[in-house]
């Protein structure tokens, strides 16, 4: 039987991660609490989040959810989480959308050194561009492959265009477009000489489905759509990990992506395009 775990959140985490809405949609698995000794803790990913997460683990949390983490040094937190076997799940904007996991085997079939991945994000004006890039890297990692190198062709207050390589050797083109005219969303696409895979993911708070389309010379297939928000899917994952007492790789992956983001900044890359 599913074990019910208590959740301690904060107004900031609630605002960014829709925590009350998620808990109300997982009433058997999760239950809100205000007090100390909660099983799971939601931490807003604003600067200083790693210390808060560390404190939660020290206070005995069995799992931590970080909502929209900003760039940070996670070394101490990762070491502590690993040592105590506590899962720290990073609820980035798109990676947990159920369509991402559905797309992964399809992308795997078209991901090789000749491939070109196109990744685009639409985000609101004024967002933290590093955070957008981190969320995009997390999405690419979850759906396709980790990005192993990146350089910006352009980065300014309207977004960025970057060129990258994936672990497979495939090339990638990453873009972010900042506008309030378009709903927040992310797309990934690999078009091969014969086949193509496309993933479109909406914002994390909506249960509008992501869409995976697999096409070839004979036509296209839209995979079954799943009406679950990325936030809810992230909490299901944290619940399962905590129940099993398993840590996870999110922080290690995040550390690698943070290194890519800081290394790929135009000033760090010497402006190479």
């Amino acid at each position, binding site marked *: 039987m599913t074990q019910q775990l208590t959740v301690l959140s904060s107004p900031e985490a609630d605002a960014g991660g829709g925590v009350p809405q998620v808990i109300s949609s997982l009433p058997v698995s999760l239950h809100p609490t205000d007090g100390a000794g909660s099983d799971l803790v939601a931490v807003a990913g604003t600067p200083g989040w790693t210390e808060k997460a560390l404190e939660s683990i020290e206070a005995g949390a069995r799992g931590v959810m970080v909502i929209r983490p900003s760039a940070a040094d996670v070394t101490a937190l990762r070491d502590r989480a690993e040592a105590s076997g506590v899962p720290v799940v990073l609820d980035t904007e798109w990676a947990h959308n159920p369509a991402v996991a559905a797309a992964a085997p399809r992308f795997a079939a078209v991901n090789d050194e000749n491939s070109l991945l*196109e990744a685009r994000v639409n985000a609101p004006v004024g967002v933290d561009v590093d955070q957008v890039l981190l969320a995009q890297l997390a999405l690419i990692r979850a759906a396709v492959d980790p990005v192993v190198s990146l350089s910006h062709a352009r980065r300014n207050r309207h977004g960025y265009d970057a060129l990258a390589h994936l672990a497979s050797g495939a090339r990638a*083109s990453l873009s972010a477009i900042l506008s309030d*005219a378009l709903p927040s969303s992310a797309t990934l696409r690999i*078009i091969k000489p014969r086949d193509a895979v496309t993933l479109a993911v909406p914002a994390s708070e909506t249960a509008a489905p992501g869409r995976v389309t697999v096409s070839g010379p004979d*036509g296209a297939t839209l995979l079954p759509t799943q009406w679950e928000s990325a936030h809810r899917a992230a909490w299901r994952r944290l619940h399962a990990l905590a129940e099993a007492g398993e840590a996870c790789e999110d922080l290690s992956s995040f550390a690698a992506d943070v290194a890519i983001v800081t290394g790929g900044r135009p000033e760090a890359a010497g402006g190479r395009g």
Partner: protein
Amino acid sequence: METKTSSTLGVGILGAGPVTQAIHLPTLSRLRDVFHVAKIMDVDPAIAESVAGRVGAAWTTSMEDLLADERVQIVVVCSPHQFHAQQVIAACRAGKQAVLCEKPFAMSQAEAEQIAAVSQETGVPIIVGAMHTFDPGWLAAKEHWGDLVETTHTIRYSIVLPPNPRFEDFATEVITRPESPRQDRRDPDVAAGMVRGGIMGLAIHDLPLVRAFCPDFTDLEVLSCQVPDPSGYLLNLRVGERNVQVFGINTQSWEPEWTFEAISNTASLRIDFTPSYVQAGSATATISRGGKSEVYGPYLANGYESEWRYLADLARGKAAPVDVTGLIHDLTFALEIADTASAAVRATTSTKEASL
């Protein structure tokens, strides 16, 4: 010139390849109250004769012969790229009523300037077959996009192109088709050629649309250029203050895409065009701002039909001619992108793909 007996305008076509067969003849068949095909010229007599036979037109293998024929009032230049400029100039000098030149207008700045001078001198109006600039979806967007030209910061122009025959074969029964050999994009010369060919042959269609959103179009920087597998181009450009991405890829995968987007902080325009060759109606334009979207189209007529209707109005003096300076600027813009991008890709390909 003598007065014509026919009540419809006589069209003369230079070059009777797939574009004439699949695009212009089917479009003209929709406009029989306005045009008839008077004569068709192709260097290949078998093609000229066969294609002319379909529409009951005369045929020839000589451009001079076609241009001297007084039944020809409007000339369409549909030959391979390298002949466009000289044929447009010859048609102007022959004193025709209007000239439609398939894109690209010319292959060099010098050719473009010669065309401009001849057009000025002879007063013969010229249009370029950039059909999307005539597409009713684009024209409707233009009427409603407000200050988007001034406020746009990002432009995206993407074409996913399945093999042309998939469309040509629904538009006509093409009689001959040139073979295109598979090439290795890792060879620097091949990569540079693909990019130049891709820009002057494919991207050129909507570079006039891109330029419409780039007031500072001469301030151009190619930030990156890559060639996707098996062929195409992926360019990041800075054009004045605009962030521009131009993408095109050839694929056997079925799903075609042809989109143009212009995005500001508060508004966005997205245009979805119908594929080339087929008479599948206009583009659909969506303008979004403040949580609302307005959709224009699709309309029944596509850009090909609109370009021909405009040509008829031009020939009859009912429409103002296209500003040739604008056409030259479109070409200059395309050439500059093609030259810079192909040089960039040649340089990066020769240093091997390992670096970006």
